[in-house]
């Protein structure tokens, strides 16, 4: 009986700690990435973005995805990789209209992906 209660307490603590950490970590990481993308969006909108701005966003993502791999399905990570790569190319070629739409998609993804980890009925069902 005591052993059972101890195991329930220990596993509950591990799971609670894990849930809190995962929630905070993914929210923070995506919030930071979203802010970086917003800066790039402004620059692309003003047509002042340069190749290095796009690479900075890509590097920021590469650093974050190392750890996000543990919590997010790898297919979603790949989606970010592809959209960022396309944005970099379009900014380098100064195709502002196309680049803007790609960055918009990235902004939307950075907003929506962390929502899939939140406690809501639509995520559970």
């Amino acid at each position, binding site marked *: 009986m005591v052993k059972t209660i101890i195991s329930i307490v220990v*596993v509950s603590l591990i799971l609670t700690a*894990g849930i809190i950490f995962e929630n905070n970590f993914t929210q923070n990481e995506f919030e930071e990435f979203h802010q970086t993308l917003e800066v790039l969006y402004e620059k692309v909108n003003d047509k002042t973005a340069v190749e290095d701005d796009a690479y900075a966003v890509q590097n920021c993502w590469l650093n974050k995805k190392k750890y996000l*791999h543990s919590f997010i399905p790898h297919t979603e990570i790949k989606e970010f990789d592809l959209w960022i790569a396309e944005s970099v190319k379009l900014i380098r070629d100064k195709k502002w209209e196309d680049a803007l739409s790609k960055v918009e998609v990235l902004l939307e993804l950075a907003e929506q992906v962390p929502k899939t980890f939140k406690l809501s009925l639509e995520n559970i069902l």
Partner: protein
Amino acid sequence: MVVIFIRTFIIFITLVILIRLMGKRQIGEMQPFELIVTLIIADLACIPMADVSIPLIYGIVSILALFLLHQIFTLIEKSGDLAKKVLSGKPSIVINTFGVDMVELRSNNLGVDDLIESMRALGYFHLDQVDYAIFESNGKLSALPKKEPLECSSLPLLVINEGKIINRNLEFLKAEESKILEFTQQKCSIKDVEVLTVDGTGKAYFKQKQKKYEILQFPLNEGVKW
């Protein structure tokens, strides 16, 4: 993680309810919730292993959640008789001194053929060889044999199961349906016969509704023996 935990919880509870409703037929030696843990845990371990696009933590969290649920259910089960009855069910006495108890059998989604099969596994081929037979909550059959063991030399066949004649067994008996009807009508209408088994010597186990079983002699045709 919290979403995975809740999803695992919902699946677990649903399966516990379903397995409990299915009765003892679906269980083999384990308690219902233990069976469910065993069923799910194998898949949960396999999916993140086989699909590299799923983070390993998804599998680990689900398995931990199942372990937690198992421990909680174990604790609840130990807390009292009512909790144990709700979670694991209670043993069912399917044969008593009056014979086969059809009500208990039906409440566990079992039939006389299932009972005969389980008894054969225990080494009892005749229903009257035991005073009591109990389907334990883990699905296993336990039996208390009669004080004086009966000598049995022939395999009994189920001829009537809950008022219905088993035609395929009539071929062994080499008897027509009319002969069975004639035999049962000496006692009651065929609808009231719960069980009738006949062995190769003609020994018949006859049980009618709400009456104690009787051992009768069935008039086998000449030369019929198995």
